[in-house]
């Protein structure tokens, strides 16, 4: 029980999750200032951090959070209102809590933050607060010589006022006595007004009038209803990830379980192939039962390791907010597909590359508000992050609506850096890919934001280590899109086992679109045409036999497995389609890691090793075939 062994590590982890949740709450609060449910949720989280902090001996954390919580309590009780300053300082306070968790010695730095927080709240109390006065005079007030107009003027003298008439009590014209005073007034007075001053205005009518004084911004008056409508949908969300039905399990234990399940799946495949050769029907039934159980176990284990992308988007929102302030550019950050799930390891490894991409988008992609106005774009730039499933892959896109990439500039820079030559003919896509090369930076000035630390080459390496790919698209003036394609899982996939000249290979089943016979005209050796006509559309194909230099003669009935990735297709010519199989992915060693075309290896039922084909790379090969034939056509 390693987790229990070190309770303070457990607390640190829990606290940093809570701080992340507080941060998300604060950022939401920035958009919906009056949302009392959100305020309460942040308050609750703070309270938990304080309580467990004190329990585990993190006294500095507990002390600081106590003050933070006290300040937030004022918001909760409506004594102060949320404004941009309060949010900004509170976010700093979150950073400080993180600092305290890492190193309690930073405690003295907390005092100025708390002072600033109190200050921000006081100013919020001063500017945002005020009173709502609802008053109805007695019906005979005018006949008795009172002047409603003067009373209202007196109220107006107390501060900035907004006056609205309350006409509900006015009867139809026929029944109306013009000497009656039937109109009521609702007066909002801004600023720090003492309710006693208001009462003093009505001192001569004190017993006769209907006077109601409430603080401005209090949720009770009807005018404050509108912003609260958004709350119910949100109420359930903060519980995400910390609900009562979840359990914390150390990642190593999940990894261990995954390894075991992987071995079980391989053993099961052996059992299955033995049962089939033996032909014993009783054995076959048992083998099939075990196969079913192993598949269920595999799926359950893999789903345990899956976490939604939403679990890291919180920090990107914070990042964009900070970038927006630092750069002085209003930026809107939108996310979609947050419930798309990926292996936890993958998500963790992706966080830094995504931070870098978003930072680049904000710093280099988006223009300054002035530039944007000049080209008739909305002043606020937009960065979108969306995630979706696509076959056996997950696509994560970061899109900005900035100036886009400048191919000419990239070309110039690449030539300067020796990444390409003057006379190289590069397509736009190839040109954009150069951005990912080490030693390439298009920023003319190295800024504090994007110029430091990791470059796009590191982003590329991380993604490629995860067997993923990066695509860059851009439209000048309209922004650019960076797409990360990642395999859904790193562990076990369903594969289609194929045979070429006695060698076995596995193709990820999710990428397989269909299998067809190789038409007779193509059967003979390498014919001139490398396209298949599949129901009217042309699909390029490659003979894996040629690609893999297989010398054994081809079978008489070759098959074509049509695979797809990123919207493109390619046909793979094979000798025989063997079966579906569970493919436990084993990474290739560093001796073979650089080899294109294979994404790993797996162990078959008979104990031999089979290579797993890398579909995206094969599809990319198909594209070059298409390009080449297009060039040939142009030349002809």
């Amino acid at each position, binding site marked *: 029980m390693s987790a229990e062994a070190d309770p303070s590590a457990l607390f640190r982890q829990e606290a940093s999750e809570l701080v992340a949740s507080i941060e998300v709450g604060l950022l939401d609060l920035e958009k919906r200032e009056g949302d009392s449910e959100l305020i309460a949720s942040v308050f609750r989280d703070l309270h938990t951090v304080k309580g467990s902090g004190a329990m585990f001996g993190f006294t500095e954390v507990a002390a600081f959070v106590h003050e933070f919580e006290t300040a937030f309590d004022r918001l909760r009780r409506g004594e102060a209102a949320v404004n941009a300053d309060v949010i900004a300082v509170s976010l700093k306070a979150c950073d400080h809590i993180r600092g305290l968790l890492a190193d309690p010695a930073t405690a003295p730095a907390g005092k100025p933050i708390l002072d600033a927080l109190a200050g921000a709240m006081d100013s919020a109390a001063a500017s945002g607060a005020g009173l709502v006065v609802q008053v109805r005079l007695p019906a005979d007030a005018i006949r008795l010589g009172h002047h409603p107009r003067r009373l209202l003027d007196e109220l107006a003298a107390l501060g900035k006022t907004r006056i609205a008439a309350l006409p509900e009590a006015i009867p139809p014209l026929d029944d109306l006595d013009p000497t009656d005073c039937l109109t009521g007034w609702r007066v909002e007075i801004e600023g720090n007004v003492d309710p006693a001053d208001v009462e003093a205005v009505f001192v001569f009518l004190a017993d006769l009038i209907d006077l109601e004084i409430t603080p401005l911004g209090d949720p009770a008056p009807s005018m404050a209803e509108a912003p609260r409508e958004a709350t119910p949908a949100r109420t359930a969300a903060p519980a995400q990830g910390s609900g009562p039905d979840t359990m914390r399990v150390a990642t190593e234990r999940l990894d261990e379980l995954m390894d075991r399940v992987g*071995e079980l799946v*391989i053993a099961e495949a052996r059992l299955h192939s033995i049962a089939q050769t033996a032909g014993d029907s009783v054995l076959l039934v048992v083998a099939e039962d075990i196969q079913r159980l192993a598949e269920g176990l595999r799926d359950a284990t893999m789903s345990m390791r899956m976490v939604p992308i939403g679990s890291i988007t919180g920090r990107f929102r914070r990042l964009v907010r900070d970038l927006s302030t630092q750069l002085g550019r209003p930026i809107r950050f939108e996310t979609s597909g947050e419930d798309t799930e990926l292996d936890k390891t993958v998500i963790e490894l992706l966080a830094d590359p995504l931070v870098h991409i978003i930072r680049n988008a904000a710093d280099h992609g988006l223009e300054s508000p002035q530039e944007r106005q000049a080209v008739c774009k909305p002043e606020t730039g937009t960065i979108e992050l969306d995630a979706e499933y696509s076959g056996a892959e997950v696509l994560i896109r970061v899109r900005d609506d900035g100036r886009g990439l400048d191919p000419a500039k990239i070309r110039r820079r690449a030539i300067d850096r020796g990444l390409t030559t003057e006379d190289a003919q590069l397509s736009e896509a190839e040109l954009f890919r150069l951005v990912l090369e080490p030693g390439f930076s298009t920023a003319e000035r190295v800024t504090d934001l994007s110029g430091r630390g990791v470059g796009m080459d590191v982003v590329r390496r991380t993604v490629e280590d995860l067997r993923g790919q990066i695509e860059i698209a851009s439209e000048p003036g309209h922004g650019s899109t960076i797409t990360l394609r990642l395999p859904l899982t790193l562990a076990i996939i369903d594969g289609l086992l194929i045979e070429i000249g006695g*060698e*076995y290979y596995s193709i990820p089943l999710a990428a397989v679109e269909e299998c067809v016979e190789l038409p007779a005209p193509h059967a003979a050796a390498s014919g001139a045409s490398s396209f298949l006509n599949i129901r009217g559309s042309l699909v390029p194909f490659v003979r894996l036999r*040629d*690609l*893999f*230099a*297989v010398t054994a003669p081809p079978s008489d009935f070759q098959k074509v497995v049509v695979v797809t990735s990123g919207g493109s297709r390619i046909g793979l010519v094979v000798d025989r389609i063997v079966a579906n199989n569970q493919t436990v992915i*084993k990474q*290739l*060693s*560093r*001796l*073979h890691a*650089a*080899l*294109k*075309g*294979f994404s790993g*290896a*797996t*162990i078959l039922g008979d*104990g*031999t*090793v*089979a*290579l797993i084909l890398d579909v995206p*790379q*094969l599809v*990319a*090969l198909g594209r*070059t*075939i298409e390009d080449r034939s297009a060039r040939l056509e142009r030349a002809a």
Partner: protein
Amino acid sequence: MNVVTMRLGGEIMAIPTDCLREILEPVPVTRVPRAGAFSNSLINVRGAVVPLADLRVAFAMGIEPATMDTRMVVLDVPIGGESITVAIIADKVHDVSHFDPAGIEDLPAVGHAWPPDFIRGIGKWQNDFVILPDLETVFSQAVQNHAPAASLSDKET
């Protein structure tokens, strides 16, 4: 220093037992297309996929067909600080014996065709000369040689 001695292409090689994992009777191999002659196949070693390399290729020795004596020797080789598991083919594995490090001599500059980087020294065993290969260099070079040369469309153009 304990070493395991083995015969490869008519020479005797000695490999420190520190990096020896196990010695296997030949198991089925899976060819890795386009991987070059040095490490062009994979084997299954107790559920792990391990590359099989042929030192005879690295040392430009004659390749004998497999015999009853052929073995696969599984080793842990450090490459750039990280250890990887590889298997090598041996025409025959002799035994484990003690080597006096003081008796190891540098490779003479002439009289052989071996790449000098790949050899740590020459020792003596049962009145024979034995080669102590520098496995780290051999495998590091293989990793580097691979990195740039392996694009799919190479073959096509």
